[in-house]
Structure formats: structure tokens, C-alpha cells
């Protein structure tokens, strides 16, 4: 069982790295790229004996307490069997 956690900056939080990447995309000449926001992606291997809702609760807590800083970031959890 696998948990996928996506951590992204909240709307309104300046993302200078995303801006730099966007600027590079424009310089190279990619078309239609209006904005880039950089985030983090985690793959977490879980013990298969965990029930789905238990796994979700555990990983949500992990994401909230450790993987993301809720002051500046949002997170999204996916559980994949």
C-alpha cells in the first residue's frame, strides 16, 4: 500500500522558485505557460495490514505535523492499494 502526499504553497504565498522556473520556460520559448508553482511530492510505503481509513488518518496527521508547514503550505493525501 502506498500513500502519495502532495505539498504545495498556499495561494498568496510568494513562490520565487516557481517564478524563476516560469521565467526560464518563457526564455526557452514554451508556449502558453502562464504560471508555475513549485511543491513537494512524497511516496510513503505503508504496512498493507492497515485499513484504508486508518492509513488515511495516519498519513493525514503525518502530513499536517511533519511533511507540511500549515502556516504556509497545503497538502493532499492519496492512498493507493
Amino acid at each position: 500500500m502506498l500513500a502519495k502526499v502532495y505539498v504545495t504553497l498556499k495561494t498568496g504565498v510568494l513562490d520565487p522558485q516557481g517564478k524563476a522556473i516560469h521565467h526560464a520556460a518563457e526564455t526557452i520559448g514554451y508556449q502558453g505557460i502562464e504560471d508555475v508553482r513549485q511543491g513537494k511530492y512524497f511516496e510513503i510505503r505503508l504496512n498493507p495490514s492497515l485499513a484504508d481509513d486508518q492509513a488515511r488518518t495516519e498519513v493525514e496527521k503525518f502530513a499536517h505535523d511533519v511533511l507540511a508547514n500549515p502556516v504556509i503550505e497545503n497538502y493532499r493525501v492519496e492512498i493507493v492499494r
Partner: protein
Amino acid sequence: MKFGVVVFPGSNCDHDTYHVISKVVGQPVNFIWHKEENVEGYDAIILPGGFSYGDYLRTGAIARFSPVMRAVTNFARSGGLVLGICNGFQILCEAGLLPGGLLRNRDLKFHCEHVSIRVERTDTPFTIDYREGEVLSIPIAHGEGNYFCDEQTLADLESGGQVIFRYCDIDGRITDEANPNGSLGNIAGICNRERNVLGLMPHPERAAESVLGSRDGRAMFFSIADYLTERLKKRA
């Protein structure tokens, strides 16, 4: 009185801070290893600058879970003085002992230079030896010093007099040009509501002796010592 300087794997300003307290201020000081679970007997604890745990995940994010931080949190909650410098400030924010967080500098550059900061408040144990409005020359050295918090938190910090230092020009004017990293409100340092926990990005320990080009930072350490002397006198 006794000072403690916490040492995390990756701290690199611990010896500078120790030196200033022992040789410049002349007070007893110990290093506290990050695995220590007990900080009894200390009057002030300093979280020094550096790159604790390689800044992995986020600056200060891993250090915050080290055993010593549980003890430091209890120490702070019971009124102990805690000063976080640079990475120490980032750790205090991650630990929730100070509000907000520190983002990547807006220009993506690591800034290592002397900046001017203005003393906004002298009613904290860390700033009693300064004058309000005094402009200090103190070095910064960080890539993530861009202070951020939500609007309500910022309003609370301002109304509570918790913004203690702001980036300014040499005449003390708060301008965007004088803001090295994009911090909201030119914030360089804040304290908690109880005023016993202070975090700042500039390095006062690197500006405590004339040979280093500025001694404007030394009053921060003398303030703590003077405050503790008074407090210990009252208790005696």
C-alpha cells in the same frame, strides 16, 4: 545565571555564540546537545544559526522534533528566556513557539552582508540595553529569511508590539530597498506575546566585538544578562 547554547547536527554559529557569552559578556555558558532531554538549571537558552539537519524538508523542520526541543518548549512555556538566531528563529517558528514562518528570499539569493535594523521595542528581556529607534549594523547570512504570516497574525504582532526589529536604511527609514529578503513589514525579528521568546534572522553574535566591524549586537546578550541579574535579585 547560566546560559545554554543548543547544538544540533549542522549548527555552525554555536561556538561564536558561546564565545560572546563567555568572553564578551563574561557569564557561565554550556553547550546543550540536541539529544538532551533536560534543560533544568538554565536561565536563558539560545538556538544558534546554522543548517540543522541540512535544512532537509524545510529549514528547522527536523530540528523541531529533536528531544531537546521538547525540553526547550516546556522551558519557554514556564517563562524561560529563549533566543533563536537565524536557523534558531526558523526552528522556533516550526516549533510553534513563534508565529509565522520563513520563506525563500524573494530574489532567491543567499544574502551574506551587513544590514541595518531598527530597534522597535526595548520592553523585552533581549533589548532592554538598546534605545528605541536605534539603528544597528548587524550581518545577515541566509537564503530563507523572508518572514511570512497570515494577515490576522501580522495585525496581532503589530498591535501587540511583538515586532522587535525591522530592516531599515542607515537613517532608520523602513523602505522596500532596505528589505533584503522580502519579509512582510520589513520584519527582522519578533517575540511571542509573553515576550520571553525572541527570534531574529540577523546575527548579533557576529557583531559583538570591534574587530568584527561592529559591536552593535553585543547589547542583546548584555540585555539578557542584565534582565536575569534583576530577576535573580528579586527572587533572592
